[in-house]
């Protein structure tokens, strides 16, 4: 890199090349090419000092090292499953990582096929006819589900019903999407961590366009009334949107079988691990709503040679064609995260997925029992089936315990005055005994 002492290390011009190019365009320096009026030109310094590659890596390691070294028992919508080495190595192939959206499908068959396979996996997991090839995260997928509902149930009203126990961030995003579509978001009560169907029945009416429920819920409860919720929604001509994730869906009843019209959720549960909340919005729905689906869709076609190929399709739904009448404003999505999730799912295969999911049930039960054995702690608080995580009640302030556990090297959620939430997967299970011992110490 000796040809340029200053400047961008990724601009490869040698001095003689640069001169030849300046000559060709007839200027003495690049600055002469800028048509920026003097009164808005910036002549100051930004004050960002350049670093060598080695320095940036060292600096970033040092800054990130400021994170405390915690064993996280954290979930509530963002989960850590073990990601096989295969995923990183294949996903990092530059042909995938550095490619663009597949607007020239003839030169992008590889990525298109991966996305087609991803969509197909979601079709199998959801039992619904159509899945798109990604939204940003579960929260924005929920927002998109609500606006879809407002389009396909336009005449029936403007209420969206959500459970009172829901991640605040998810509700916040939903409300921002709902406002613009003139929808109002209302909560319905829960009983012992699951949907209170009697209360839902009282809340619902013909002016409801969508009922949202989760399984597992934000507290890790496996919902046992999905059929009833689906029927309630249906009887009021409202859509039933179910929130879940691909690991849970590997064993839970198919959403289509309980009457779900839309399935959303966090698909980065596969392929990414914890990444400060970065996600992958799963979105599947019935074929009836195909032309109302937000985001990109990959479809099969043929090429001139007669072979089966893949291409982005039904693009007239999208913003670059339909503009203000598009089904959504989404353009850039999470394609590469979808690729990672697909490789992870393929790597597990059906047996591995079922085993991973079954572990999320058995392990959670076992760990809840261990936690329940701690004096002054009750777990699980909800007498329900659980997936990955559960809530524990303590005699102490949950905030104080959260803080003391953090000091001892463990991360848990304090979700209420006396409620802790604990999430266990294969990535932290080896620390469970030590964690429970520590919990015992801090609750004494």
């Amino acid at each position, binding site marked *: 890199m000796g040809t340029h002492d200053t400047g961008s290390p990724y601009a490869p011009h040698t001095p003689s090349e640069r001169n030849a190019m300046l000559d060709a365009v007839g200027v003495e320096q690049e600055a002469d090419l800028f048509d920026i009026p003097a009164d808005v030109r910036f002549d100051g310094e930004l004050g960002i000092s350049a670093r060598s590659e080695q320095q*940036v890596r060292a600096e970033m390691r040092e800054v990130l090292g400021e994170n405390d070294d915690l064993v996280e028992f*954290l979930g509530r919508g963002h989960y850590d499953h073990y990601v096989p080495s295969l995923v990183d190595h294949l996903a990092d192939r530059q042909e995938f990582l550095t490619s*663009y959206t597949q607007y020239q499908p003839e030169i992008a068959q590889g990525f298109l096929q991966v996305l087609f396979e991803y969509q197909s996996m979601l079709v199998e997991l959801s039992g619904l006819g159509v899945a798109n090839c990604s939204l940003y995260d579960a929260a924005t997928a929920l927002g998109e589900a609500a606006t879809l509902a407002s389009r396909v149930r336009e005449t029936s009203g403007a209420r969206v019903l959500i459970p009172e126990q829901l991640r605040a961030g998810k509700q916040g995003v939903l409300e921002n999407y709902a406002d613009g579509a003139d929808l109002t978001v209302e909560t319905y009560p829960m009983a012992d961590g699951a949907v209170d169907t009697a209360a839902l029945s009282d809340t619902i009416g013909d002016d409801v366009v969508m009922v949202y429920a989760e399984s597992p819920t934000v507290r890790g409860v496996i919902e046992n009334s999905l059929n009833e919720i689906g029927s309630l929604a249906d009887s009021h001509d409202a859509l039933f949107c179910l929130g879940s994730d691909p690991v849970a869906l590997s064993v839970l009843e198919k959403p289509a079988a309980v009457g779900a019209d839309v399935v959303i959720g966090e698909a980065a549960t596969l392929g990414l691990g914890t990444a400060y909340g970065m996600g992958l919005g799963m979105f599947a729905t019935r074929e009836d709503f195909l032309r109302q689906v937000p985001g990109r869709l990959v479809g099969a*076609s043929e090429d001139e040679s007669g072979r089966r190929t893949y291409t982005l399709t039904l693009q007239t739904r999208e913003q670059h064609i339909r*503009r203000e009448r598009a089904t959504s404003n989404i353009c850039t999505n999470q394609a590469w995260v979808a690729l990672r999730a697909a490789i992870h799912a393929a790597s597990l295969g059906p047996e591995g997925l079922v085993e991973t999911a079954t572990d999320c049930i058995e392990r959670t039960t076992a760990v809840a029992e261990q936690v329940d054995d701690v004096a002054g702690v009750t777990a699980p608080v909800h007498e329900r089936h659980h997936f990955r995580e559960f809530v524990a009640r303590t005699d102490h302030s949950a905030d104080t315990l959260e803080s003391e556990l953090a000091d001892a090297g463990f991360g848990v959620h304090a979700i209420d005055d006396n409620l802790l939430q604990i999430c266990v997967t294969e990535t932290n299970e080896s620390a469970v005994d030590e964690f429970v011992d520590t919990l015992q110490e801090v609750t004494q």
Partner: protein
Amino acid sequence: MNDDTPTSDRQQNDRQDGYDQARWTDGDRYEPLLSEKNSHEVSVNTPLPDDLTRDSLELPDLSEPELARHYTRLSQMNYGIETGPFPLGSCTMKYNPKFAEDVAAIPDAGVHPDRKDRTLQGVLGVYGTLQEHLAKIGGMDAVTLQPPAGAAGELTGVLIAQAYHEGDDRTEIIIPDSAHGTNFASAAMAGFDVVELPSGEDGRVDLDALEAAISEDTALLMLTNPNTLGLFERDIVEISEMVHDVGGLLYYDGANLNALLGRARPGDMGFDIMHYNVHKTFATPHGGGGPGAGPVGVREDLTEYLPTPHIRGSDDGYERYEPAETIGKIHGFGGNWLVLLRAAAYIRRLGDEGLLDASAKSVLNANYLADQVDLEIPFGPFHHEFVASADDQDAADAAKRMLDYGVHPPTTKWPEIVDEALMTEPTEVENKRTLDQLAAAFNAVASEDDETLEAAPQRTAAQRIDQVGAARSPRLSWQALDKE
């Protein structure tokens, strides 16, 4: 001599410089689907009651070596920035530095967002510094990193404008006809009416048209500068005054910020709100369509509207807090963290001089390439990108033919203000030799007949794909294929 001779001669005659993409075939398909290689239905037995579980799960079932080969072959049938030039206009396809991948893979980056702030100082420190760097680059007072893409940034900005105007009953957002489709869609998503502004004869905002469009109903004017023709909106100060005089706000779409790095800042031009596309300007990988990130910058008095949580310095380092008038959430958590981390590393690597050089070389490259291309380029002077006209050729066909020359074609048929548009942005990462190769491809295609163009591409994995058929009878999963 053997019987192969005629074939060998033909191949010799057809040979062009460039690229033959790998092509794996299997009868009437290319690489078979995972499900076609091996699928397995397993029964589901869990501790749960049967009525809560599915009976079985059927998915592909392949060994690791088979999977490695599957995805490697698929990758070979895909074109990336390291394969060759990628001059897509308004997409800013830069080389993605490898070290940024290593930074994103630092184990300490893999943390959960629900930790307490004091245990999360590493992540919050990167957020804090990146917010500060982006604010300097844009001339803004505060920046949120939460929006996960440019369009999400637009929605954030539109919601901020809506909150700012609360009670004013301003219902309209003005957008030039040459703007990105996302601008229109984002405005509509927040419930605004879109007023489309026709471009002037010089390809820029027509001040008379703006005067006619603007009113007390105007909440926001969204502008891309340089615009999608690569032209700087010279009247930006006057535009800003006009919008502000009626009480509206001015929004900067950051898609083309690469042209201005270190030379001009939206904040100094009067923009109140802007988004940055880090997957464009700051070289994070496009990932086949995403993830990106679309941070949003605002002027001082809009800071309290930013999404929650926002991040600021505290006595002990950094903390998350809820701004007083926050618009709420735009992403379930903190956005596309691992993308932001790459961008933070890139900005630090380049510093002032590197950023200034990026805009210099991107504009030099666009101007040099335009000079070498024998097509009409109707507007100027342009900056980081130009829009050439394929003239009497179909731009989409011309683009398909360019694939045969081993280059990715430009964005086609947009903006519509140029007939048969070829919107071209080489970015700063190409050297003269590559630009000459690109120009040669443009010029060779321009001299070819329609028949050749319509038969293209020939050297990519797949030949021309039937798009109409794909949309007419949608088959969006292997289950749909199995039904046939």
